[in-house]
C-alpha cells in the first residue's frame, strides 16, 4: 500500500512516499533542497506562496525518487492543522485536488499527533504511552491510548521550548538555529552555575511556561554580563532548566496515568542533553523511553503519511470539504 504524505504547516514544504508503515520510499523536505537552483535564482519570500510554487516540483521529484507513478498512490495524507493557515491551505488544496483526480481517499492529519507517531516509522511501541512533542512552535504532552486516540494533557502557556532557545541565542547574538548552537556551547559548561527558576514545576498540571525563564535569563545577563569564560556555564544552566522541566512533567504524566512508556518527538528532541536526562530519569522510574531519529524529529511528511495510514487501517477517512485550522483548542 502506497501512502503519499504532505506537510506545509510551517516553513518547510515536505512530501513523502511511504510503503505500508515502515518503508519510506522517499521523503523530501524543502529546507534540504537547494532552492536557488530549484527556482533558477529567485526564491519567493512569502511562506504560503513558496509552498504553492514548491509543491508541484517536490511532488514530481518524490515520485521519481520513490519509483512510483501517481496512479500507484493508494492514499493521500495531509496536515490540516495546527500551523499558519495560509501555508496549511497550500498543502491541503493540493492534496484535495490529487485525491479527487486520482479517486483515492484523503486523510487530514494533526501535525502534533504526527510528530508523536513518527516513532512508528522505525519502532513498534505498545499502547498506552505518553508523548512529549517539543519544537520551535510547540511544547505539548499527549496521552496515546491507541492508534488514532490521544488526549492533550498539557501544553506551554507562552513560549515553546525551541523558541526559548532561539530567542536567547538571538539575544546573545550567537547565531541561528539557537538550539544547536546553545547545545554546542553548553557542552563545555557546568549545569548548576546559575540556578535559573523552574516555572510551574510544582504546579499540579502538565503545562509549561518558558517565557518567565527567558525573562530571568535576560535579567541575569543585564545584571552580570557574560564572558567567553562563563558563557558555556550560563547556557548549560539555561539548557538544564528547560530539560529538567520537560522531563519532570512528562515523567510525572506517565506516573500519574500509570503508563510505562514515553515517546519524545519534535525538533528539540534532537538535543543530546534532553535525551540524556530523559534516559537517566526514565531508567530510575522504570519507564521505557524512545526517541525518533534526528531527521524524523524535525518537520517531515513521512510522519504525516504513517499517521494517515493508521487512520485508513481503522476505516477513518476525511471528506473533500475538510477544513484547515490554525490551532488546537485547549479548553
Amino acid at each position: 500500500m502506497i501512502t503519499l504524505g504532505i506537510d506545509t504547516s510551517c516553513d518547510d514544504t515536505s512530501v513523502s512516499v511511504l510503503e505500508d508503515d515502515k518503508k519510506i520510499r522517499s521523503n523530501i523536505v524543502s529546507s534540504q533542497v537547494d532552492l536557488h537552483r530549484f527556482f533558477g535564482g529567485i526564491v519567493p519570500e512569502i511562506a504560503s506562496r513558496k509552498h504553492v510554487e514548491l509543491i508541484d516540483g517536490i511532488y514530481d521529484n518524490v515520485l521519481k525518487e520513490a519509483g512510483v507513478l501517481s496512479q500507484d498512490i493508494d492514499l493521500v495524507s495531509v496536515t490540516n492543522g495546527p500551523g499558519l493557515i495560509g501555508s496549511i491551505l497550500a498543502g491541503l488544496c493540493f492534496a484535495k485536488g490529487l485525491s479527487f483526480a486520482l479517486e483515492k481517499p484523503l486523510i487530514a492529519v494533526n501535525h502534533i499527533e504526527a510528530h508523536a507517531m513518527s516513532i512508528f516509522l522505525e519502532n513498534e511501541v505498545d499502547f498506552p504511552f505518553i508523548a512529549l512533542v517539543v519544537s520551535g512552535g510547540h511544547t505539548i504532552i499527549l496521552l496515546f491510548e491507541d492508534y488514532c486516540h490521544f488526549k492533550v494533557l498539557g501544553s506551554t502557556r507562552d513560549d515553546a521550548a525551541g523558541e526559548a532557545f532561539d530567542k536567547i541565542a538571538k539575544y546573545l547574538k550567537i547565531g541561528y538555529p539557537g538550539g544547536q548552537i546553545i547545545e554546542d556551547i553548553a557542552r563545555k559548561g557546568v549545569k548548576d552555575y546559575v540556578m535559573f527558576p523552574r516555572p510551574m514545576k510544582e504546579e499540579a498540571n502538565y503545562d509549561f511556561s518558558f517565557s518567565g525563564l527567558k525573562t530571568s535569563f535576560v535579567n541575569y545577563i543585564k545584571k552580570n554580563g557574560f564572558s567567553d569564560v562563563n558563557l558555556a556555564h550560563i547556557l548549560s544552566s539555561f539548557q538544564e532548566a528547560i530539560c529538567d522541566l520537560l522531563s519532570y512533567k512528562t515523567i510525572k504524566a506517565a506516573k500519574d496515568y500509570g503508563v510505562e512508556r514515553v515517546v519524545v518527538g519534535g525538533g528539540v528532541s534532537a538535543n543530546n542533553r534532553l535525551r540524556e536526562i530523559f534516559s537517566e530519569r526514565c531508567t530510575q522510574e522504570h519507564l521505557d523511553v524512545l526517541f525518533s531519529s534526528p531527521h524524523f524529529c524535525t518537520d517531515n511528511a513521512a510522519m504525516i503519511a504513517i499517521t494517515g495510514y493508521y487512520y485508513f487501517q481503522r476505516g477513518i477517512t476525511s471528506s473533500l470539504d475538510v477544513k484547515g485550522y490554525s490551532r488546537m483548542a485547549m479548553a
Partner: protein
Amino acid sequence: MERKEFISKSPSETWDIGEYTGKNAKQGDLYALYGELGAGKTQFAKGIARGIGVKDWQYVVSPSYTLMNNYEGSALDMCHVDLYRIEGGEIEALQIEEFLQSGIVVVEWAERATWWNGVIRVEIEVIGEEERRILIANL
C-alpha cells in the same frame, strides 16, 4: 489622542491590564505592541484575550513560529500576530486587514512594520526585574 499609563509589578498584573484593554476593545482595533525581549508582550496579549472572552486564554501562546494564531472570543475574535521572524514583504501576505472585519488584531514586534493612523500603540517598558511601565496611546 488618548493616553493611559499603567505600572505592572508581575506577569499576572500585565494580564489584568490587558484584560481591561480587551474589555474596552472594539471590532477593527489593531494593537501594536512594542517592547524588548521578555518585556511581556505575549502576557499582555493573553490579558486582552481574557478581556474579550477567549475561553482558553491561558493557552494564548507566542506566535513567533506560527506567525499568526487566531482565537474566538465571546463577542470578538482575536488575531495574534508576531513579526519577530518576518522580513519586509511578508507582512502583506498575512492579510491582517481581513481579520479586522471580524475582530481585533494584536501585533507583537510591531516595530517591523509601518502602521496606519488609528492603531493603538502599546509600549511595554522594562523598569525593573519584574516591573513594567505600560503606555497605551490611541493614535
